[in-house]
């Protein structure tokens, strides 16, 4: 029972992390595309500013996935 709950928790947590990261990356991509469409000459700066936020976001999502994996590995 406890093991089943651990597996369920890890699975649900993984799904939630993916949903959150997907929403965040989607917003970032939309913002970047709009920004470049409005101001094509500033593409380099816009991409640079987006990259940093993207990588920080990705780090949080990866952290969530690592903790989900730890639930599975340390379930006993």
């Amino acid at each position: 029972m406890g093991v089943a709950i651990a597996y369920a928790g890890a699975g649900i947590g993984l799904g939630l992390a993916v949903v959150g990261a997907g929403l965040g990356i989607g917003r970032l991509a939309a913002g970047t595309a709009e920004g470049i469409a409005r101001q094509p000459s500033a593409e380099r700066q816009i991409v640079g500013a987006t990259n940093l936020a993207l990588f920080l976001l990705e780090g949080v999502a990866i952290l969530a996935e690592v903790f989900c994996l730890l639930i599975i590995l340390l379930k006993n």
Partner: protein
Amino acid sequence: MLMVPQAPVPEAQAAGQAFNPGDLILGHVSNTPLAHPLIHLPTVFGIDLSVTKHVFMLWAVAATVFVVITTLVQRFVRQERLVPAGPMNVLEIGVEFIRDTVIEPNISRKWSDLWTPLILTFFLFILCANMVGLIPIFDVLGLLNHYVFHAGEDAFLTRLIHGGPVATGNYNVTAALATITFIATILAGTLAHGFIKHWKNLVPPGLPAPLYVLLIPMEIVSMFVRPFALTMRLAANMTGGHIAILAITSFVFIFAGMFGTWMAGAGIGVVFSVPLAVGISGIEIIVVLVQAYVFTLLSAVFIGMAINAHH
């Protein structure tokens, strides 16, 4: 926290009749078990100095990077003309890319000469350590061992084959790299502003006193969270791709076992596993490049934040 799952003992796999994808996947990404290291070394001050596979790969990659880069640069410095020739071109593209997109926007001109070597070393080392995972050296060696060499259970070759080849997929390795960034951040702030002023720069001056009670703990926590996030990002990304490829490949054996015939496994392999694994391997090439870039970019950003503390 920094524990790495130990590889299962190979005998258990050989003796076990049922195929266990979990053990197989962990065995392919984790370090060699401490009970069977590659080279036995004594324990000093409670630290077991034995060389495991990740340490071995770390040294191999570091030595390769050092020899190749030094040779290239030495040859370039010694030649008459300033136009690079041969493989030096590739190195120059990489160095220029890092200089233009990572160092110059983040670290001010005055300090960039001091920190460029560190950032470039990070980039080249992490890139090469990541790329080793894309080359199936140890899988080919394993095949050769199985069909040609027949090395014994305790032979060096057998111990070398087991475990993951990606040193940067180990949390301990990336934690060490992130620690270098952490120390470099403090050093950069200290050199630019002096020791006391660097710590004062962490919080903006001239705020009401109650705000500092909230702000100072937050800044201290974020100071330690940054290297922690660097550690986790690199290691988890490098391990994650391998786990995904192995899990998808495992479907072949899972289906073959489920239906009791190898035909089912071969079918799912042709239709599903192999195309998807090839696609994920393609993504892995991008991930390898991006993660090396991200680590260097964030290191440069943190160093730049300590230098250009404009509160």
